[in-house]
């Protein structure tokens, strides 16, 4: 027969009954939660009991409490009069926003991966909502490729997020070609294969040099031939410096000398440093140029000073490395460092 309205969710539901195994106690547990004792009809030994705290029993939730204890020979059951019928589901699409209380949807009610980008507002992910390990938890890449990208805030577009490719980053500056700590012996330190066609200009730091046992002069000379490495005796030039107590330090070498002085007479067991620029050392189309400065404690006077120096070959040769050499004794090299940088135009 046709009818008006929604189809009842449940057409028939019987009252539920619970039979108890009795004992000498006043407390029992109900199989269904109730609001109070009026939701059940309790029968003991076929006698209906009167509900209420002043009468035979009370009930709340699943706790049934009798006013006096039963015995093991009693029969007792209850009929659930007001039990909620759990099998009734709301009709599909019938629960709207107004049926949900504020904050009713908890995290566990949301399926994993269910929140997609469409469910996030354009400003939802801010500094507060990002994990501090967002970057550090990622896999590290130790060598950048030109196509690698960096996330930036574009100051010309109200801080909009954009990316910049590594190939578009400013590239000027010093690129470390090599850095090493010489061994603990020797009076000459040679660096081969540090000059290549990659750079036209190089900056070299000779740091924490120390002469072990003798006052000595420190010289520089050029090398050719790459890995096979041979000395290139083709320098000419001079040095001029000044030290404490108004004393000059100077010297010169003829063209095509093997080496040029970069520290004239260094006191032994004193730290000292030198820095040098090598201009066009590799390109045989041009003449190599060495110029730089050192500061040290002069051996004969114990006065501190510096010298500037400049050397240049009298020919055009492709130089692949250089060496620094003590005129006497050995380096005390355990903490010395030689660093070679290639200079890149911006």
């Amino acid at each position: 027969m046709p009818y008006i309205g929604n189809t009842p969710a449940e057409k028939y539901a019987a009252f539920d009954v619970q039979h108890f195994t009795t004992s000498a106690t006043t407390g029992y547990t109900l199989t269904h939660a109730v609001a109070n004792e009026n939701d059940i009809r309790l029968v003991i030994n076929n006698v209906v009991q009167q509900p209420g705290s002043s009468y035979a029993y009370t009930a709340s939730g699943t706790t049934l409490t009798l006013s006096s204890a039963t015995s093991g020979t009693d029969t007792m059951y209850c009929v659930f009069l007001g039990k909620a019928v759990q099998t009734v589901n709301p009709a599909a699409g019938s629960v709207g926003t107004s049926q949900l209380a504020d904050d009713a949807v908890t995290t566990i009610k949301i399926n994993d991966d269910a929140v997609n980008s469409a469910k996030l507002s354009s400003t939802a992910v801010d500094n507060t909502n990002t994990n501090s390990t967002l970057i550090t938890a990622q896999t590290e890449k130790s060598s950048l490729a030109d196509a690698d990208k960096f996330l930036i805030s574009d100051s010309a577009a109200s801080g909009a997020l954009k990316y910049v490719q590594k190939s578009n980053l400013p590239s000027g500056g010093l690129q470390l070609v090599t850095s090493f700590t010489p061994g603990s012996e020797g009076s000459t330190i040679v660096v081969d294969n540090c000059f290549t066609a990659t750079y036209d200009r190089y900056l070299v730091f000779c740091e924490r040099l120390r002469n072990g046992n003798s006052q000595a002069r420190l010289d520089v000379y050029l090398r050719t031939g790459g890995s096979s490495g041979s000395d290139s005796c083709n320098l000419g030039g001079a040095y001029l410096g000044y030290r404490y107590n108004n004393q000059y330090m100077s010297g010169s070498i003829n063209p095509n000398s093997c080496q040029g002085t970069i520290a004239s007479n260094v006191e032994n067991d004193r730290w000292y440093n030198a820095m040098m620029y090598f201009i066009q050392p590799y390109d045989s189309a041009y003449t190599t140029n060495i110029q730089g400065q050192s500061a040290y404690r002069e051996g004969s006077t114990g006065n501190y000073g510096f010298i500037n120096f400049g050397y240049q070959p009298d020919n055009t040769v492709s130089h692949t490395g250089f060496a620094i050499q003590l005129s006497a004794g050995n380096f005390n090299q355990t903490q010395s460092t030689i660093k070679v940088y290639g200079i890149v135009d911006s």
Partner: protein
Amino acid sequence: MVQKKNIFNALTGEATLVDYTAEEQASYDDYNSTEKITARKLEQIKEIRLEKLIETDYLANSDVVMPDNVKTWRQTLRDLPANHTDEAAYDLLLARDADTKELTHSVWSKP
């Protein structure tokens, strides 16, 4: 003793320690020979002498009278190479105070 070269290959990162070649060692030994060391000490003495003489050169101007003791001292300085001829004498002339690093030989003191 044979000197050594620390050779670092920037391409491979390999460092090797090799002996000087015979030619390099000969050059090193020559520079550090007693004869060359003595010669460099004499050069150093001459440099110091020059500095000392320059300090009193102004007394040779026509409008100034150079005291006799200064004249004598300057002559002594000029005669240093003639009167000091071996390395031991050079070492005495070049000796310096351990703390102040000032030259200690009396010949350098201007009267």
